[in-house]
């Protein structure tokens, strides 16, 4: 019997797991993919919102603000790339300036500090690559950018190091409420737990509706993005939003925490919760809308496009907490933007509720933090030399675009909840995340995974278990 079963190992599940791992509780995370961070957490803007956008009084507003305040210390403690770069909301006509003022007032009532409406000249002095047609902007100095992969991975690692169990490739088929516990059926076993926390992103309505009479409804809202080479990573410094216009909601242009340039997302409601494909129209829309914000689109530097699904709940707000009709069943439903910002706060909040319910005590052995992940590329030449002296495998570059070494990849594989796929290595080390998108390092990473995990190369996947790269030996079928 577990005390807590968390379903889903995205940023919310990982955050709840991390927060619960400080208690004397038996906690299990069930994840249908083969790794953490395989759903919406891997395909979003990576923005730490300042909090002016959420309607005052909403749960979104509350957790956005707490999450934003937490983020600097949090990311330092857990070694997550984060930068408080500030954000700008652009207005493109004089009539829109009152809307900026209204946004500022809304932000102030949410408790956002430092909001300021800037003139065109002030904005252009800040961001020389912005389009000359802008008229003003709302500046939010507390906005930031975070690496969404590491924010998830770091918390899952901390949880795991502190005793939380993880089961991967396990999907929950049923949850049955018993008198004072739950029976959770997965594809290969049944698990008993006193409490269940639903952190399943776009599927979270399905799990809620399995047990609760208070039905929820998620409509996946697809967002497509274009990612650009680091060569143009400093094209803008701040996160550039657009005021919504008659043509619809705008797109953002932002540096990422890993110094790429990102543009997107679109926003279209869809029906298929598995459809994370990109479309020609979507990519075109991203680039044409972004072109309103910036002087030009450095199109030749696009390295990939991707899409993610927002878990938009019918109420428009987050649904967080214990269900009224099913005690012991907790929801984190409808966690769309600003969900990434809010994640650490949501984890703390839900773990607190569960701990009170289960009367759990704090562990004295809890290790609250993570060792620094050594990254070779940003080091000075002399530090690089020292590092190679300490471990010669830092002298072997595997990914040449991002300068990722053998030592870093081996570390990513052997860390708690280490990488077991090509994409897992990519998210942990950036090998394959650069301009050649794994063309060069892909076969090498596959070989390292095969060797380190003692697996046949034909069993190494891009992600999950089915996304196999090699189908057989030469001449197998002849």
């Amino acid at each position: 019997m577990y005390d807590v079963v968390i379903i889903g190992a995205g940023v919310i599940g990982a955050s709840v797991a991390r927060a619960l791992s400080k208690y004397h509780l038996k906690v299990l995370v069930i994840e249908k993919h083969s790794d953490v961070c395989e759903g919406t957490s891997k395909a979003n803007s990576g923005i730490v919102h300042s909090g002016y956008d959420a309607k005052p009084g909403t749960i979104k507003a509350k957790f956005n603000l707490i999450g934003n305040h937490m983020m600097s210390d949090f990311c330092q403690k857990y070694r997550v790339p984060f930068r408080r770069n500030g954000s700008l909301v652009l207005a493109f006509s004089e009539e829109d300036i009152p809307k900026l003022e209204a946004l500022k007032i809304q932000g102030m009532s949410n408790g956002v500090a430092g909001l300021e409406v800037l003139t065109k000249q002030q904005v252009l002095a800040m961001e020389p690559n912005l389009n000359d047609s802008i008229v003003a902007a709302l500046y939010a100095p507390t906005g930031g950018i975070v690496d969404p992969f590491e924010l998830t991975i770091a918390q899952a690692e901390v949880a795991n190091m502190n005793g939380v169990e993880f089961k991967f490739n396990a999907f929950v088929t049923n949850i049955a409420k018993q008198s004072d516990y739950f029976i959770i059926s997965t594809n290969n076993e049944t698990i008993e737990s006193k409490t269940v926390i639903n952190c399943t992103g776009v599927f979270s309505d399905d799990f809620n509706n399995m047990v609760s009479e208070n039905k929820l409804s998620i409509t996946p809202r697809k967002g497509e993005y274009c990612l650009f080479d680091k060569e143009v990573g400093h094209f803008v410094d701040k996160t550039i939003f657009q005021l919504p216009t008659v043509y619809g909601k705008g797109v953002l242009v932002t540096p990422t925490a890993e110094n790429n340039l990102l543009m997107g997302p679109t926003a279209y409601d869809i029906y298929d919760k598995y459809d994370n494909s990109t479309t020609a129209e979507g990519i075109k829309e991203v680039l044409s809308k972004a072109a309103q914000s910036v002087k030009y689109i450095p199109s030749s530097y696009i390295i990939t496009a991707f899409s993610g699904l927002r878990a938009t709940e019918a109420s428009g707000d987050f649904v967080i907490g214990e269900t009224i009709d099913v005690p012991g069943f907790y929801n984190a439903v409808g966690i769309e933007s600003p969900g990434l910002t809010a994640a650490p706060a949501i984890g703390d909040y839900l773990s607190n509720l569960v701990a009170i319910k289960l009367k759990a005590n704090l562990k004295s052995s809890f290790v609250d933090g993570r060792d620094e992940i050594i990254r070779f590329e940003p080091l000075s030449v002399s530090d690089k030399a020292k590092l190679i002296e300490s471990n010669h495998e830092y002298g072997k570059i595997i990914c040449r675009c991002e300068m990722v070494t053998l030592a870093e990849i081996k570390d990513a594989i052997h860390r708690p909840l280490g990488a077991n796929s090509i994409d897992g290595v990519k998210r942990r080390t950036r090998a394959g995340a650069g301009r050649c998108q794994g063309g060069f390092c892909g076969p090498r990473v596959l070989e390292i995974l095969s060797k380190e995990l003692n697996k046949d190369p034909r069993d190494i996947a891009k992600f999950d278990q089915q996304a196999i790269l090699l189908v057989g030996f030469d001449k197998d079928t002849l």
Partner: protein
Amino acid sequence: MINKDIVIIGGGPAGLSAAIGAYESGNKSIVILERDNLLGGILNQCIHTGFGLHTFKEELTGPEYCERYVEKVKNLGIESKLETMVIDISTDLIVSAINEIDGLIQIQAKAVILTMGCRERPRGALNIPGYRPAGIFSAGTAQRFVNIEGYMPGKTVVILGSGDIGLIMARRMTLEGANVKMVVEIMPYSGGLKRNIVQCLDDFSIPLKLSHTVTKIHGSTRVTGVTIAKVDDMKNPIKGSEEFVECDTLLLSVGLIPENELSRKVGVIMNPKTQGPVVSESLETSIQGIFAAGNVLHVHDLVDHVSSEAYLAGKNAVKYIQGLLDNQNKIDIQCGNGVRYTVPSTLNYKNVEDLTQVRFRTSDVYKDAYVSVYLDKERIIHSKKRILTPGEMEQVTILKKWLLERPNLKIITVIIEKE
């Protein structure tokens, strides 16, 4: 700090030939820095034949061709460092590199030759919509899996792009037991050599669909198929022409990009057309003492041309160290109508022995057209070509005596003319 006269970055065909060129010009203080664990570069995985027809008058495989250069380099006693990655070149020619054994290596050079080759364009650069499943490989990555590792990356294959590697891989995958359904090319002509279309596609009845492209990738874990469509003159897919093709693999052969991260970092001026450095007749870049040759300079069709070009770079690096390269008297070479780029971009007759080759690519397909060279307004070359395509590199030979006879020459123009 180590001192070496000539540091060669990259031990593929260009680097090897540059080293031999320098050595045979009398300078033996050379080191080749190679990031892989063997010399020869990409030729090691090019196990098909067709190499060396110009250089050796025989048809060799890639490994055989590079073996001849590797042997020579070894016999001459030219030093090379393997599994060594150059991380920086400074403007005063200090080359910093790392490897597992030496850690950080810093070499003060008198001349540096850039021979880093090129890499393949990835999918992202094309923005093909759809999913991001396993089963999408660049042709060269697939070639490595099949030819070096012995693994098949797929069973039913569609190839996008008819560059030479794509064509070669169509044949290779077929020979290894895969079903190659088609090669899809967005342009109305192939980007590869004619001989490869015949030997790799026609001989195996693999259809080449010109003016077509892949408009969607299907399959959320492994590729299950692609949608292809015909494109109009502006390369936009034509509505209604879409066709679903079932496959488990999409190979991309959609162009090669010279690998110039190091060149850019040190501040070498680049040619936006070639994505390689701008060079003089001596293959010297905009930074004195830094030379470039092979696919890092511009993507070649034939390794034979890479070898001859790089040999010249090696030779000129020695001349530079001896103070024998003149850097006055530069005449610009201009691209006229139909010429996409030329290498070199400038010509200095003082640095030329008897003649110099100017290599170029056309910007379109031309039938029964003339390749002309003008010295200012005087047409000096006018040679009829049955066909000119961007997929085949062309060259013209400029004689030194022409330049000596015209001391006031301002500009040389290479142009494609109808008559």
